[in-house]
């Protein structure tokens, strides 16, 4: 049995048929082909599947698909493209904030959520914003630096 849901994905309205027991993560990856969002732990602990739901970061593995009906979802695919990277993506690359890359889409989304709300975050605010995203490679320092650099760029 499937239900029909309509929602905005990265600014575009979509209408999809989906079984109600599917998570948003599965819907994104398996129905919409948006595989940028990763499944890590699947139980809301690692943040690899972080997406924005009505502008707020959430774990897509914990959101059942019917919940997004009528709402707006933003994934890493909405940030930038290979030819036109988002400033955050550029900064991550410049600061060596990407190693294996598995946490990166979720980290980028948490970073974006922070900067959307607070364009001049302190280090503590940055750490708090990415506290739900695990990275096993970088030790976080480069990620924090990448986010801080954006702030400085904006301030000039």
């Amino acid at each position, binding site marked *: *049995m499937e*239900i029909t849901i309509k929602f905005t994905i990265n600014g575009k309205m979509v209408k999809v048929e989906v*079984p*109600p*027991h*599917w*998570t948003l993560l599965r819907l994104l990856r398996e129905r919409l082909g948006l595989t940028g969002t990763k499944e890590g732990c*699947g*139980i*809301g*602990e690692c*943040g690899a599947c*972080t997406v924005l*739901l009505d502008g*707020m*970061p*959430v*774990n897509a*593995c*914990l*959101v*059942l698909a*019917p*919940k997004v*009906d009528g709402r707006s979802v933003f994934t890493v695919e909405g940030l930038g493209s290979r030819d036109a990277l988002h400033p955050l993506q550029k900064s991550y690359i410049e600061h060596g904030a990407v190693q294996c890359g598995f946490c990166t889409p979720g980290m980028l989304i*948490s970073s974006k*959520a922070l900067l959307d709300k607070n364009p001049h975050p302190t280090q503590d605010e940055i750490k*708090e*914003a990415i*506290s*739900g*995203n*695990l990275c096993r490679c970088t030790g976080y320092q480069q990620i924090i630096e990448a986010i801080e650099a954006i702030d400085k760029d904006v301030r000039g």
Partner: protein
Amino acid sequence: MKWSSNLQPQTESIMIPSFDYKTPKTLQEACDLLQEAHGKAKIIAGGTDLVIGLRNGDSNPSLLIDITSLKELRRIEETDETLSVGAAVTHSEIASSPLVRQYGIVLSKAASEIGSPQIRNLGTIGGNIVNGSPAADTLPPLIVLDAIGKVISRDRERNVPVAQLVKGPYETSLKPSEILVGVSFKKLSQDIRSGFIRLARREAMAIARMSIALLLQVQEGKIQNIRIAPGAILPTPQGLSDVEEFLKGKSPDEEVLRIASRKVSEAMIRRSGIRPSAPYKAPVVEALFLRAMRRALEGQDETGRS
């Protein structure tokens, strides 16, 4: 190959079994759906605990009833004397609410330390209560605030102290036809100080190992009123009335607090039994209590309260 056929069931097992999903537009409709499902339905709010449970096969409902579209469950409202928080209000909303900060900062603090930003944006106070985890972060603050839960079903409405909503680990006193729609508590007056401290393996994303919530009223150097509730170390959420009684009327000097801290650890052992972890936990809960008391005596949690 043998190993690949072994992998198949594993992938299947992490899939969530199917169910029907309804998003009622009114509370009446939600109650009707729940009643008619005869125990086969579950209420879903944020889903941060429920979806993991479905995935693990802890429960197998045929219907999920999503209550997050019900506006009356999403409000934080004040009357002259009370503050009420709808069951579907998220931890983020509680943590950022000026009303909760002003009249129940012990709850704001607990909500702001739950999980991660992602979890706080989904998880709700109602869900945290009815999931009934002994480590539920909002329970100790709600206990010290003497919060009352409002519970409704199709034919009935009742008010239950939050302490009585949780019967045991992951077990509530709700009937299958009942929905927790919100909690309310008396607004704290400005002379009441609070303390909340939470210990976990790390600050973010870890289940609380131990927490202490307390409210304190000191007049002319003497403890007029005190409420203490520990989290994660008792099978059900409850206040430590014997310690509270001991402290009332005394001045909170070092000696009195040291004796009180002993009474806290004794109460833990009395109610939870001597577990292998007791020799570690006893001194830790004593230190945690002393720190929470110090926070409250110094009014640390209130700085920033308008």
